[in-house]
Structure formats: structure tokens, C-alpha cells
């Protein structure tokens, strides 16, 4: 009995000392953040681990918001060193960072990701506009009298006579996904801007409360929306705030189907249902070009070149953020950043483009690479 309890005590002591060591220092880089940047960051991390004496960084896919939350939680080895994001850091997140002592952050833009609307190769290719997407998928659309009503459309032909006579059925990511945020903003928001009243509303500044309210009445938006935003922000809302609430929401009555975070699943479902459309990242289209085809949006097909030069309208920049206070504390951070920002990684013919990353123009790459090399912190909202 005594021997046994001694053994147990020894194991416990060993475990505790091991943990204490692990907590005191970390010899690998810890990265969190966006699931969109994850496939690119992991490739860099793997090459970095293989070609340098440093350990391979650990990368968690937590989503952009979750990543920034962990990143801004403080300075110290228990907090991540780098976070990936499929959008720029928000003002509120910067304030949270500063509050927790993360005062210097280096922002690195890595390239672009296109969001595609695709269907099976068995069906003809769709030629859509952002306005079509808005009218087909938004929760509220203008009715015959100009007032916003619950989306009545069930068939693509009703949305635009040029489109085929097919039931609207779109598979897309859930609201927790960065892809969904970007789609709401770029495709739906972009389409809503084509409606004159909504465009006017979007342009109104906060001091024109009277005009905003008049337009809201014209569009049939309840005044409670205005009041609730005013209460949340603590000041008078801009027209754009109202616009976001109205335009960035997807209908929930059936034609839009949340298919989960797994883009492979959407591709498989599209293959099985040739009449359906699916929304996912460009890299999945690139890998499955034999099964699905990307619809043209505003006349531009989702291709490598068109996303890189900005003519394809539904694309977004990708970033990662480095905690400067950790440089020198955790080994390998500058080297990892250098690998990511090297031409052989993110260049026009780098290995990241093989994985579907759309590179930035050369001048922009040079600027961000220089900032990353010198670890120039970004300007922060205080």
C-alpha cells in the first residue's frame, strides 16, 4: 500500500514539475485565428519547421473573432503570439488589446481570398450580379411600392428574367464563419447598394437624423431599429448602420441553407443537386474544378487573375497580427514572419498560390514585407 501511494505521489510530482516547466517557457510559436487563413499559415509553418532549427508552430483554427479574443487577452507565454484574421482588426478589439497590455501589434496583410458562388458542372453556368444575389438571398427586399418586405422570391427567374427557371436553393456557411461575414458585406451589401433608396440611406451621416428617419419611413423600416442602434452605440447612428442591419441579413425561410463550416460538404451536395448553388472559398473551387464551376458575378468569372487584379467583386483581404512583446521571448517569430512574407511563399509563383492564395500586387507585398521585417507596429486606436 505504502509503495503504491509513493509511486502515485512520484507520478504526480513529475507531472506537476513538467507542467511548471511548460508554463515557464514555450519553445514553439503559438498561432490562433481564422479558418480561412489556416490552410495557408499551416503550409508556411510546416515549411518553416522543416527548414529551420525551430520547432513547428502550433496553429489553432478558432475563427477570426475567436483568435483576436485570445490574442488580446494579454502578454505572456500562455497567450498566443500570432493571430490570423480574414478581416482587419476592429477598433473594439484594439481597445481590448491595449487594455490587456498588448500595446504593439504588427499587421501583415498576406493576400486575398475570393468567395465564389458555384454550381455543379452538370448544369449550365450561372451569370449573376450582386443585385441578383441580394434580391434572391436577403431577408428584406424592396416590394412593388418601394417598402421593404420579407423576401417573396422563390425562383431565379422572378429575380431576374435572364436567369434560368430554377428554384432558389443556395448552400452556404453559418453566421459564425468569416466567409459568411464577407459574403453578407460584399455580395448582399454590394447588391443592396444598387437599390437607389438604400444607397441614399447608406450615404447619410449621423447628423442628418431627420433625413435618415424619413428614408426609413419610406422604406418601411421600423423606428425601433434606429433606437436600438442608438442605444447600443451610445450616440446617433449613421445611415450606414441602418443599412448594415437591413442589407446584411440573409433570409431564413428556406432557400438559403446553412450547410456547416465544412466546404467539402457543400461541394459534395452540389454534385448531388445540380440545381443548387453553393458559397465557399476560392481554394475549394480550385481543387474541385472537375466537379463544380464558379458563377460569374457582375460579368467576371472567379479566376486567379480576376481576383488578384480586383475585378472580381466578392473578394477580401487576409491578415495576420504579431504580438511585438513576444518577439525575442518566444524563439522563431521573426523567422516565421520572414518565411511567410518571402517571395517564394506569397509571391506570384510562391507555394501559397499553389494552395489557392491570391497574391497582392508586387508593390504592396514589398511594403508589408518591409514592415514585417522591421516589426513596425500598426497605429492603434486608444
Amino acid at each position: 500500500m505504502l509503495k503504491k501511494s509513493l509511486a502515485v505521489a512520484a507520478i504526480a510530482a513529475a507531472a506537476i514539475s513538467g507542467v511548471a516547466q511548460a508554463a515557464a517557457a514555450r519553445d514553439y510559436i503559438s498561432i490562433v485565428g481564422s479558418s480561412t487563413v489556416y490552410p495557408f499559415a499551416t503550409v508556411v509553418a510546416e515549411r518553416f519547421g522543416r527548414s529551420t532549427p525551430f520547432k513547428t508552430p502550433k496553429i489553432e483554427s478558432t475563427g477570426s473573432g475567436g483568435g483576436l479574443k485570445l490574442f488580446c487577452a494579454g502578454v505572456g507565454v500562455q497567450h498566443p503570439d500570432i493571430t490570423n484574421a480574414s478581416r482587419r482588426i476592429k477598433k473594439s478589439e484594439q481597445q481590448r488589446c491595449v487594455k490587456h497590455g498588448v500595446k504593439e501589434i504588427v499587421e501583415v496583410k498576406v493576400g486575398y481570398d475570393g468567395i465564389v458562388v458555384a454550381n455543379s458542372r452538370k448544369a449550365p453556368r450561372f451569370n449573376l450580379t450582386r443585385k441578383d444575389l441580394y434580391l434572391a438571398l436577403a431577408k428584406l427586399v424592396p416590394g412593388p411600392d418601394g417598402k421593404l418586405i420579407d423576401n417573396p422570391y422563390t425562383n431565379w427567374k422572378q429575380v431576374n428574367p435572364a436567369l434560368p427557371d430554377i428554384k432558389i436553393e443556395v448552400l452556404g456557411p453559418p453566421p459564425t464563419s468569416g466567409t459568411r461575414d464577407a459574403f453578407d458585406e460584399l455580395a448582399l451589401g454590394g447588391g443592396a447598394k444598387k437599390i437607389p433608396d438604400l444607397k441614399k440611406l447608406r450615404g447619410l451621416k449621423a447628423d442628418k437624423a431627420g433625413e435618415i428617419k424619413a428614408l426609413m419611413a419610406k422604406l418601411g423600416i421600423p423606428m425601433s431599429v434606429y433606437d436600438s442602434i442608438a442605444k447600443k452605440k451610445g450616440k446617433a447612428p449613421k445611415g450606414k448602420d441602418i443599412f448594415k442591419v437591413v442589407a446584411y441579413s440573409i433570409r431564413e425561410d428556406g432557400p438559403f441553407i446553412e450547410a456547416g463550416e465544412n466546404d467539402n460538404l457543400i461541394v459534395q451536395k452540389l454534385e448531388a443537386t445540380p440545381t443548387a448553388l453553393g458559397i465557399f472559398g476560392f481554394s475549394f473551387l480550385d481543387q474541385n474544378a472537375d466537379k463544380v464551376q464558379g458563377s460569374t458575378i457582375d460579368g467576371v468569372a472567379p479566376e486567379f487573375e480576376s481576383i488578384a487584379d480586383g475585378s472580381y467583386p466578392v473578394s477580401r483581404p487576409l491578415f495576420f497580427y504579431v504580438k511585438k512583446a513576444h518577439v525575442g521571448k518566444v524563439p522563431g517569430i521573426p523567422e516565421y514572419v520572414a518565411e511567410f512574407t518571402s517571395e517564394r511563399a506569397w509571391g506570384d509563383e510562391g507555394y501559397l498560390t499553389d494552395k489557392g492564395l491570391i497574391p497582392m500586387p508586387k508593390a504592396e507585398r514589398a511594403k508589408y514585407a518591409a514592415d514585417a521585417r522591421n516589426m513596425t507596429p500598426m497605429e492603434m486606436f486608444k
Partner: protein
Amino acid sequence: MTSPADRKPIDVVRASLKKRYARERRFRFLGQLAVFSGVAFVGILFITIILNGYTAFEQTDIRMDVYFDEQMIDPQGTRDPQVLLQGDYAGLVKAALRKEFPEVRGRRDKRKLYRLISSGASSRLQQMVMDDPGLIGTTQSLWLVADDDVDMLVKGHIDRTLPESERRLNDKVVGWIEKLESEGRVEKRFNTTFFTAGDSREPEMAGIAGAAAGSFYTLLVTLLLSFPIGVAAAVYLEEFAPTNRLTDLIEVNINNLAAVPSIVFGLLGLAVFINFFGLPRSAPLVGGLVLTLMTLPTIIIASRAALKSVPPSIREAALGVGASKMQMVFHHVLPLAMPGMLTGTIIGMAQALGESAPLLMIGMVAFIVDIPGGPTDPSTVLPVQIYLWADSPERAFVEKTSAAIMVLLAFLMTMNALAVVLRKKFERRW
């Protein structure tokens, strides 16, 4: 017509007999149908997984004549390991490919040509030279790992007859591969990488060893904690604890705990073990602690059932010959209950092995290349590896996902079979 009064009881029975037989037949049929549909679903699941995954146990290799050029590895001829580590091994592979296809000109075509061989091949050459520097200056005929796109084409997952624009590999690349095939330089060989390597973003370099090691450490921690705690709790509650309101309450709550969704334990682990105690994220230690919470109720309930099944006569006999209560429990009851406790523990462990939801919260869903060497190194576990691969864009990960599921199922079946064997072998009936 006979009036009801004339009918004897035996007539009534006879009349209903047919109905009763029919009812029994129907019930038997429904039961068989239920069993059959259950087996059919499991069969379909297994067949699809095996059909999708069996090809992952093979990997396409390409035989290349690689010249270990001293100029590219060690220009000064020092043979210093530091210098050898820095050599341009990717360049060796490229040179071998250029020699095989001298007609390929132009930057774009050459890039496509270089992509026939996996980027992992260079680390293998590096390892070979580190092990035996005498290779420098010689030409070796080696089987090098092909890129995942080539692998998919050779295995027939990419249709060669499709129009060029719908394929990942264009006609020129397919032509090169066909030339290599006709020379017998392309072969499908057993995929050892899959069992020895950690995760990778290149499907042909990815393996499950890292996740398997992570699962091992996690389960080790779980076992070391949950078995003693579970058995001690069960023994105390069953043999020593007084029956009163408090023990009733504890009993009810143990049953409640068994029904708590596993993600809740993950949140608890995040709040307590990581945020409060400051244990490292993504470590099997924390994973094991969380899974301990999850498996404890299973083990306690199974252990109590095992203790209950030991007949009271054993206890009375032990006490009757003068054993103390403690001696009675530890010398007589516990050994007899042990097989049942072990069965419960193995089933609890199998449950823990297949769990991924609580590990999401504590950072074990991560890309980790290095194989963990201990319970505090960052790692993932098998179900998480399956989840990560299922979410990867590369086509070749589809079969890897199914193969990893097969490995996980094999482990689960072994554990469950072990539980059955233990029960059969050591079970005592009274």
C-alpha cells in the same frame, strides 16, 4: 350457428390461437427487421468508409535516378553535418526530373514538372545524406514520393478523359506521367508515411502518428486519474457509505453527470484547468483531465454494478471468519468485482478515445506537425485529426480522412473486444 352459451372454453382458445400465432410471427418479423436494418446501416457505413479509404494505404512513388551532386550539397567538401543540413536537396530532385525530361523548356512548364515529386522528397534525401555522407558523388535509383495530384491521377480519382480545363493536371503533365508509367517508373507502394509521420498540409506527407501519440497520452492521463478515483468512489459508496439523503443525492448526481453533454466538460476544462490553474493549452494533460470528468460517471456506475453483483454470502463469510470490513472489501469483494470494473473502464476509455467536442474548447483542434513526446507537448487526438482532414481543400485528404476513421475504428473495436474477452474470461456466476 351455435349460441355463445354452447361454446366451450377450448373453442374460444382455438379461435384465438391463430391470431396469437400471427401476432407472434409479426413480432418476430419486426424484430428481425430491426436487427437487419441496424446491421445494414453499420454495413453501409463500413463499406463506404473502406471503399473511400483503402486507397490511402497505398502511395504512388516515382523511381528517379538521383545524382548526389557534391556542388549542391557540400561545395567545400567539409562533410560537416551543419553544412550537409543546409544542402539544396530540392535542387537534386529538380535536376533528376530535368534529366528525365530534357525537352521541357520554359518557366511555367518546369514548375509543373517539378511538382510531379512531393516537396517532402527533399527531406528524405537530406536524411539519407546525413546518415551516410558517402552517398555524395554517387547516383542512386530511388523511389520518391509523388505529389498528391499525381497520386490521385494514378489511383484513378481524377478522370483522365475529362476535358483539360476541368482537371487539376493538364494534358502535358498527364503525358509525362504516362511516359513514366510506360517505363515502369510509377508504382503504388505501401504507405508507411501514413503510420509514421505527423500531420502535414501536403496529403502525401501526412500521417496519423502525431494524433495517435496524442490520443495515447490523453488516454493515459484519463486512465491514471479516472480508474483509481472511479473505483475508490464506487467502493466507498457501495460498501462503506451510510444510506441517507446525502448519499442518495450524490447517487442521483452521478447519474446526472453521465448525461451531461461532453462540450460542457470542455468549457469547464477551459475555465478551470487553463484559465484558473494556468495549465498549457492544447496539451494531452488537460485533455486527459477533461475526459476524466467525462468518463468518471461511466466507471463509477459500472463499478458499483460490479460490486452489487458480488453475493452477500461472500461478505458474510469473510466477516464470519474474523476479517475486518476493510479486509473483507479489499481481499474478497474487490477481486471478484474487478473484471466488471475493468470492462466498465475500457468502455469508458473507448468513449473518451472517440470524443472530440470537449477538446475543441481546450485548443486541441490545432495543426501540429511534431509528434508529441509527453503529456504537456501540444498535440491533437485521432477524432480531431479526422475532423481537420475532412475540412481540408486538397482532394487527396478525402481518402486520408476515411483511412484515419478506419484506424480509429480499429482501435475502438480492439478495446471493445478486449472488454468482452475480459468479461467472458473472468466473469463468475453465482
